[in-house]
């Protein structure tokens, strides 16, 4: 019931964010128009971390209290998180080419984002390796939690490593202060991405629950109803 509302608000925000980002915001004095990639890059990067934390937490809740909804939620998070991570990487690379002159630099953020993508892929691979849903959910929850503990360590180590290996060429990316006209669209976009995530996760979770509970009475009732109404 929530999904249509969420999706409408999300669509509105997306349009607003796009308008703000692509048209309203003034070009950056240093990077010109190319900085507009920020409006897809940064929200994706934010979401990639956010989704992982959410996924691991939900997995942990499911593991400890055996709550099915939490297991389903965690499972639905994974592909979305992976796509956000992929987007952050791809757009980061596309941004890096004109700015740094290469597609890829071994920058701390890019590298830890890449490792995050591997963590997501490992999670999804493990999830699909099990035949039984409940066992899969619990096993991958353990993995997600181990990954969650590792994320700060990975981030920290990569940061330390990259500062030792190269100068401050990357600081171009994080301009010390961002103009308010640039910031507002960014926040709108971030919010839009967040809503988008929740909308899709809801859709995914509902399908999952339906499959999970395929033996229970309410599912068969529901299906009978839809069949009658057709």
């Amino acid at each position, binding site marked *: 019931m929530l999904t249509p509302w969420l999706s409408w608000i999300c669509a509105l925000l997306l349009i607003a964010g796009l308008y703000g980002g*692509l*048209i309203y915001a003034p*070009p950056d004095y240093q990077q*010109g*128009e*190319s900085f*507009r*990639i920020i409006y*897809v*890059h940064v929200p*994706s990067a934010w979401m990639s971390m956010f989704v992982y934390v959410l996924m691991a937490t939900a997995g942990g809740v499911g593991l400890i209290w055996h709550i099915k909804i939490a297991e389903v939620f965690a499972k639905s998070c994974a*592909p*979305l998180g992976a*796509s956000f991570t*992929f*987007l952050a990487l*791809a*757009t980061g690379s*596309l*941004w890096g*080419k*004109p700015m740094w002159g290469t597609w890829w630099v071994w920058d701390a953020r890019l590298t830890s984002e890449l490792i995050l993508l591997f963590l997501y892929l490992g999670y999804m691979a493990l999830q699909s390796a099990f035949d039984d849903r409940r066992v899969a959910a619990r096993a991958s929850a353990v993995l997600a939690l181990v990954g969650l503990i590792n994320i700060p360590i990975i981030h920290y180590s990569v940061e330390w490593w990259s500062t030792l290996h190269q100068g401050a060429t990357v600081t171009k990316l994080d301009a010390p202060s961002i103009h308010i006209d640039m910031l507002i669209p960014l926040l709108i976009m971030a919010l839009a991405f967040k809503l*988008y995530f929740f909308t*899709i996760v809801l*859709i*995914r979770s*509902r*399908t999952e629950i*339906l*499959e999970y509970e*395929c033996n229970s009475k309410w*599912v*068969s009732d529901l*299906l*009978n109803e*839809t*069949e009658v109404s057709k």
Partner: protein
Amino acid sequence: MVVQEFFHMGGYAFYVWTSYALTAVVLIFNVVQPLIRKRKSKRDLIMRLRRNLR
């Protein structure tokens, strides 16, 4: 003229528009894929139900 400038993106058109296109593709895929799956799994469940009833 303005429109052209907009699409030109100060010379960065390729990078900017590829980024946005990629984002759009991934986001749309993530909408469509669960919807298809939902329909498919519903169909499967209905089949199952019919099998069980017989």
